């Protein structure tokens, strides 16, 4: 099956710092989603981004489908950004189920 690798696995930031999270995938994908899992376990949709670049406030994401990677940028980080960030892909052929990476655990300290 398709492999999804996220890096780094853990990240500690000072409030106000910027960061880049990476997601590599092993095969062609139809769709890609970024999620933030908050401390209560809820998966919050950040971006639905099979290709191109999107921005939402301090967050932006870029997917280069031909090179099989996606990047999530967090600028001016806040303590509320802490949590686990997941990348998930829907493979090109087959049903529309998501395969998740193992996530990046982000801790933003004040």
């Amino acid at each position, binding site marked *: 099956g398709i492999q999804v690798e996220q890096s780094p696995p853990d990240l500690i930031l000072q409030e106000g710092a910027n960061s880049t999270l990476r997601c590599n995938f092993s095969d062609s994908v*139809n769709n890609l989603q970024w999620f933030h899992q908050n401390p209560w*376990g*809820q998966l919050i949709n950040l971006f639905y981004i099979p290709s191109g670049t999107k921005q939402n406030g301090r967050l932006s994401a870029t997917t280069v489908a031909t090179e099989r990677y996606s990047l999530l940028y967090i600028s001016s980080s806040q303590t509320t950004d802490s949590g686990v960030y997941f990348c998930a892909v*829907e493979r090109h052929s087959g049903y*529309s189920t998501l395969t998740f990476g193992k996530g990046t655990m982000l801790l933003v300290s004040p």
Partner: protein
Amino acid sequence: GAGVSQSPSNKVTEKGKDVELRCDPISGHTALYWYRQSLGQGLEFLIYFQGNSAPDKSGLPSDRFSAERTGGSVSTLTIQRTQQEDSAVYLCASSPIATSGTDNEQFFGPGTRLTVL
């Protein structure tokens, strides 16, 4: 509008008992998915519904697991004869359409935390 809801939020059961987990998808969403999140396995796909039929059951870990969906809406995941390794958070998601390759963003519910003693 309302998001995906799941019940119960927490379930503690004894080994060998059966449990039922419920998912209410976003109104009008055709596709419904069950995933499981555990410490050792991360987030893994269990089963996918297109309307009331389940074309992909490949993720169900054993024949003790089953799921159904009625009226193209509510879904129930049943685990029979629970084992300690079934302890995990069970997440449900829904998306507007069932066909892969088009605008099909998945939205997740808050999950049911299952603990098998």
